[in-house]
């Protein structure tokens, strides 16, 4: 049994298990066990992957599995991972696990909630392990649709509106993506040979430049909508704010990374010439995402909206770095995906825990919480410092790498874009420290808050897992970076070969 197949089988078995349960206690127990196993499996995968690499296996993809699905259409159920996928799978495993514990007290329709959550997780895991475009697309869409139910049924605030807007905009992104994928498919082999959806096969073929120019915007924007590309990011603030805690964690933490990963793995990898030509348009858009997202976060009063805009800003940075198309910047992009995924999951978990106690998300109504709930307060400070890029946490590693890599471009345009994007560091510091100050320090605004309980055991599990991961990457990033670098090498080679030989 190929280890990768387990990543889809275990969640499906968990869903089956939840169907047999009767109430919240049993449902969450089954979910915790299932996703705990998934987390262990992710760890095992990382270990096995590193073991294979140190044993000298240098093939691009490991643990490959291929089953012909629709022979006449060239569709295979094809799986395979490289260092980048493994890192993303580990991220997903951690965030899903933390998310289950953050939903420990979900009283309303608990079984349906956990089932939808795990179907969402299945879609994400499946996306990261597939290397066949059809299978990737299937998992990608599978990950979007439970969002509607999760936000619409269990959300807060304008939840129906947010859920509908999010679902429709992300589906419109899939629409564009579908056009791109079909276009790539029909140029996936020279005339006469059978067409294929397999990414690795397609990467060996040169797609004609006219088709690339047409397909690249479709594919990149299609993924970019999920990755918070300006001006298509508008689903994100309302979506995250209205969603229940675990859903926001999963969505901002992992789902938005699908966009960044897809943009990199499909759009740029398979259409490098068009990527080089059109990168400047998208660089402008992503820089606007980064800066505009950060500025928008400054003026927000609702904790969740602050974090949502912060996610827009950080995910925009991922796309920004990916478009720089050199080794360092892309390395930074992937570390940023993982780092931000963990941080934003942590933030949303904390916001959920604070809201559960104070029943408000408006920062003006809260204050001095550090005295009352010191554990949560301390973790919030850690999350904040990680987000603004304090060395020792993963945020610093990611942003440093991105900006060093981006600055390696010597032309004026790239450097100006880099400086604009780097200014977001300062803006991020503003909104993070401001929130920390108002929320945690200073006088306590409401007497009811004097008697709040600090974190329970399940909340501690949730937050400590994430903090440990963030610190591990921040203090010893080299194991992650090496893993990613090794898998980036063939991709970067392909991209720079284009640059040297020019377009043909």
């Amino acid at each position, binding site marked *: 049994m190929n280890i990768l197949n387990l990543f889809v089988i275990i969640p499906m078995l968990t869903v089956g298990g939840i169907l047999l349960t009767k109430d919240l206690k049993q449902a969450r127990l089954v979910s915790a066990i299932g996703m705990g196993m998934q987390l262990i499996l992710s760890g095992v995968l990382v270990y096995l992957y590193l073991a294979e690499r140190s044993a000298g296996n240098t093939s691009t993809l490991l643990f490959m599995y291929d089953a012909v699905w629709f022979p*006449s259409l060239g569709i295979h159920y094809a799986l395979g991972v490289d260092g980048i996928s493994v890192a993303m799978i580990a991220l997903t495993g951690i965030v899903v696990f933390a998310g289950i514990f953050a939903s420990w007290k979900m009283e309303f329709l608990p079984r349906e909630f956990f089932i939808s959550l795990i179907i969402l997780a299945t879609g994400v895991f499946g996306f990261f392990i597939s290397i066949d475009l059809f299978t990737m697309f299937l998992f990608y869409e*599978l990950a979007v649709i439970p969002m509607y139910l999760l936000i*619409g049924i269990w959300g807060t605030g304008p*939840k*129906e509106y947010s859920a*509908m807007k999010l*679902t429709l905009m992300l*589906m419109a992104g899939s629409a564009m993506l579908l056009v791109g994928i079909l*276009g790539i498919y*029909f140029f996936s082999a020279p005339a006469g040979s059978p067409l294929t959806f397999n990414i690795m096969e397609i990467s060996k073929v040169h797609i004609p430049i006219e088709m690339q120019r047409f397909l690249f915007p479709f594919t990149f924007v299609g993924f970019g909508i999920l990755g918070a590309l300006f001006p298509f990011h508008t689903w994100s603030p309302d979506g995250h704010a209205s969603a229940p805690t675990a859903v926001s964690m999963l969505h901002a933490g992992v789902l938005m990374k699908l966009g960044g990963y897809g943009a990199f793995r499909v759009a740029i990898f398979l259409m490098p010439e068009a990527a080089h030509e059109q990168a400047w348009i998208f660089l402008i858009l992503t820089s606007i995402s980064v800066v505009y997202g950060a500025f928008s976060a400054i003026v927000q009063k609702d904790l969740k909206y602050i974090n949502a805009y912060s996610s827009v800003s950080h995910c925009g940075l991922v796309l920004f770095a990916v478009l720089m198309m050199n080794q360092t910047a892309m390395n930074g992009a992937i570390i940023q995906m993982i780092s931000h995924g963990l941080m934003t999951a942590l933030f949303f978990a904390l916001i959920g825990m604070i809201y559960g106690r104070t029943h408000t998300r408006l920062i003006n109504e809260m204050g001095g919480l550090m005295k009352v709930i010191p554990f949560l307060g301390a973790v919030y400070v850690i999350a904040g410092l990680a987000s603004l890029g304090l060395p020792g946490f993963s945020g610093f590693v990611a942003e440093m790498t991105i900006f060093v890599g981006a600055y390696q471009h010597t032309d004026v345009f790239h450097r100006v874009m880099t400086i604009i994007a780097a200014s977001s560091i300062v803006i991020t510091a503003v909104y993070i420290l401001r929130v920390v100050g108002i929320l945690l320090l200073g006088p306590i605004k409401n007497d009811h808050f004097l008697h709040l309980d600090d974190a329970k055991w399940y909340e501690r599990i949730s937050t400590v897992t994430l903090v440990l991961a963030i610190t591990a990457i921040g203090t010893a990033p080299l194991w992650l970076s090496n893993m990613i670098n090794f898998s980036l090498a063939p991709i970067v080679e392909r991209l720079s070969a284009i640059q040297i030989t020019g377009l043909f």
Partner: protein
Amino acid sequence: MNFSDILTMRHELMLTVLALVVLIIDLNLHNRDKHLIIPITLSLFFIHTVIGFLPSQPSILFGGMYRTNALLVMMKNILNIGVLIILLQSVTWLKKEENREKISEYFILLFSTLIGMNFMISSGDFLMFYLGLELATIPIAALAAYTHHQTKSAEAGIKLLLSSALSSGILLFGISLIYGSTGSIYFDAVVQQYANTPLQILAFIFFFTGMAFKLSLVPFHLWTADVYEGAPINVTSYLSVISKGAAAFILIILMFTVFNTIAPIYNHMLYLIAVLTMTIGNLFALRQKNMKRFLAFSSIAQAGFILLGIMGGNTMGMTSVIYFVLVYIFSNLGAFGVVSAISTVTGKESMDDYDGLYATNPKLSLLMMLALFSLAGIPPVAGFFGKFFLFQSAASAGYYWLVFIAVLNATASLYYYLLVVKAMFINKNETPLIYIKSDLATRTGLVLSGLGIFVLGFWSQIYEIINSLSFGIIH
């Protein structure tokens, strides 16, 4: 004509025998026992469906008027499965007091139309085609007026009859022009003579108009909403699924064989009609509150997608159309089945009555959600695969912008399908509909639809079988 010829025509002959058997049984039963017809007919039809799957030889009968091969048999089998599910869903409704007198009429009329559709699919010349078409249309008009004491139903029947008559007339005019310009009505002979002369293109346009009426393509869709709303729910299911499916089947066969020479010309027309149909179908569905009208407009939009497969022009195109019709049958019957189950017991057909349905009828809500997701084209249900393959075949012919418009329309359709999901799962309701206890037949029908929706996508063997029998435009 010998015994093996009779075996070749077994679909039509069995159905005729079945209709006659129902008639005879009805004559011999007392009024209080009339409901016994239902299980008898259902079992006989089930046997008919099973026998339909037995292997057969390709052959040509009646001097070329009737032909059959594996592809046509497969199409008839697909229609049989759909009719079986519709019959299962009709059981509860037929047992109602006001329908007891007319049970056998329902079956006889239904089987008559099915015979007509079978002849239409198997036709080898335009005369048989027209005979089949008329035989398929007229009993449906009677069925639409089945509950004629309700004005809406009578109105539906008259509307359907008059609109069908007009479109049949136009179609017949087209056929006569074809005969005039080519000198023959046999498909094999016509295709040799068909060229791009203006008269023949005009003939094709008239012919296509008649077929577009049956498929509810814009701008020939105006009858759809009122007829679907007025007719009894099971007749609506039949119209939306079987009638449309049969029309799609015969249309693609004719367009790929008889009219293949004018393919570059009709593709322009299909492009425009596809865009119009999908868009207008979606736009009108947005505002519907009556579930039957809602599903009517949604099925108009779905027909637009079928045109994409026809424009593909290759084997992939035909396979995707047939596969999509199969998936569409299960998805639409799933949705109609839930609406029928609710409407037969409570009489309520408005989307507002579905608020909070999950609280009292979780399984019905879940099946409805799956069926709607399948209609919208969301994985992991079969509708995703059906739509994806249609888009793939259109893209294979280079129509990328059309695919983009189509996918955007699919996204727009998701909005109104989600409105129903929202009503069932998210909207709060003080008084949701009561728990609906369905009898065995309804439950079997719903389970069959649900199974189909789930299994058809992943079970790639079905697609491959259809693909092995299909063909592209013969140049």
